[in-house]
């Protein structure tokens, strides 16, 4: 079912997004301009009032987002791992200091240099499946790499130091 999220501006504060769940409860998130988020749970009896508001720093909200959004990715990941014995998979980060920030997948020549393949890239909660050679990395991306155990470690070393 499509979730219909309502967006409301809060002048001087930021934005509020809220929707009614399948169970009939209203839940929302207030995004302040300074990165602070509030998770808002509305009252059952009076759906205009909030019953609880929890303030989250930007780091904390990332954790919550990861907890809520990540299982799907990890589940898929776990399945992939099971499917082929002897094949190693890992999620490797493009650290902010990596020489490949802003480089393309083609620039890294990962497959020719290590034998391992990049099957997906994760950026925030976006998933780029089978990225093409012109896919451009950003700091903070995670690459899902498949290959032999040695191949995957070689990719890890390559991403860190070039």
């Amino acid at each position, binding site marked *: 079912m499509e979730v219909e999220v309502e967006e409301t501006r809060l002048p001087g504060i930021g934005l509020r997004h809220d929707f009614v769940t399948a*169970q009939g409860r209203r839940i929302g998130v207030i995004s302040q301009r*300074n990165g602070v988020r509030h998770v*808002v749970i509305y009252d059952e009896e009076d759906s205009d009032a909030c019953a609880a508001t929890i303030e989250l720093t930007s780091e904390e909200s990332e954790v919550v987002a990861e907890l809520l959004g990540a299982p799907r990715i990890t589940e898929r990941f776990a399945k992939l791992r099971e499917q082929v014995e002897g094949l190693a998979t890992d999620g490797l980060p493009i650290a902010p200091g990596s020489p490949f920030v802003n480089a393309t997948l083609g620039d890294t020549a990962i497959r020719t240099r290590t034998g391992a393949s990049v099957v997906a890239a994760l950026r925030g909660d976006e998933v780029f499946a089978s990225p093409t050679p012109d896919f451009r990395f950003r700091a903070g991306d995670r690459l899902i790499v498949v290959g032999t155990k040695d191949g995957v470690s070689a990719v890890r070393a390559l991403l860190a130091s070039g």
Partner: protein
Amino acid sequence: MNPTARLLLELGAVLFGLGAVGRFAGRIGLSPIPLYLLAGLAFGTGGLVPLQAPASFFATGSEVGVVLLLLVLGLEYTADELITNVRRQAPVGLLDLLLNGLPGAIFAAVLGWGPLAALAMFGVTAISSSGIISKVLTDLGRLGNRETPAVLSVLVIEDLAMAAYLPVLTALIAASSLVSAVYSVLVALGTLAVVLTIALRHGEGVTRFVGARSDDVLLLRVLGLALMVAGAAEAAHVSAAVGAFLLGIALSGDVAEHIRGLLGPLRDIFAAVFFVFFGLSTDPASLPSELLPAAVLAIVGVATKLVTGWIVGRRTGVGPAGRLRAGAALVARGEFSIIIAGLVGASVIPTFAPTVAAYVLMMAMLGPLAPRLVDPFARRLARQAAQRRPGPPAKKRPPDPRPEPSAEPPAR
């Protein structure tokens, strides 16, 4: 004792005392503003402990306080927000101003204070305190409530209306004859239009102009620019407060957010000085006789804001409980009423400032209380509305069955 020692001791004692008072106010969920005013009354001439320190220090501090209050308020808004808000909510804003301002004007007329004081009292009773209200909404965890956007947009319109109202009032006070009054109002509004256009259209340029890498440089640049803009605005009879507000609007993006953080503590100190100074310059002996008229004004002021909130809430589609909460949230009056009283001073009517002082004391105290007081009533309204709603009321619905545990074994 030498004068420096005396000044430092007294200033220190006042600030320390305000800190204690502020802490007390925070504990019982009140706004510190009425307590700052009372502290000012106590330290002023004719008060409990008159200060010896030169009044010029507090006078300057108070002016800086106004500039900082309005600068930070302006920083909260983006030009884009202001424009969309005015387009959508203009009728509501007009209704709010008339409904709340007219009682003030009528009050002044009944007391025979003359047209200028009537215009000033219009502003004193019309404009809610955005400072108190946004603090209360945050403290009570009501930012997420569905009536809150309506409350905030009323505040935005009031703040913008203020930017047009203050120059007119300043110009009228400065003018000596009808012709010069019309002339200076036109000059003031012309200047306002020019500055507002710069703020709205060229905000990025202004932001780049003050932008700096290090915090201390940024702080000095912004504060310096704000004081210069405020001074120039005052010279053009646009009023210092409005100049600072417009500069705040012009600054935008991440820089504005960053400056807000930097200026916050400074604003808090000087805003406290501003409220204390207003108390200092009011003679406590003149207060008791104004309490009764101010109380009448306060009762009307609460009622008209409740009506405003009800109408605004209904327009944005919230239920009766939300409408009541919106009205209660809007009750607080504070900094703007005092800025207006400061502009008028004793030049027009001697009892003007004490009346406003008594009025703001009451309204700033009621402001944070009203949302808490109406809560039980709001709950009752919500329950009634829920029962009237077609279909099973939310409360009586049987709990949904838990989803069946997945038949598949967990992937491992």
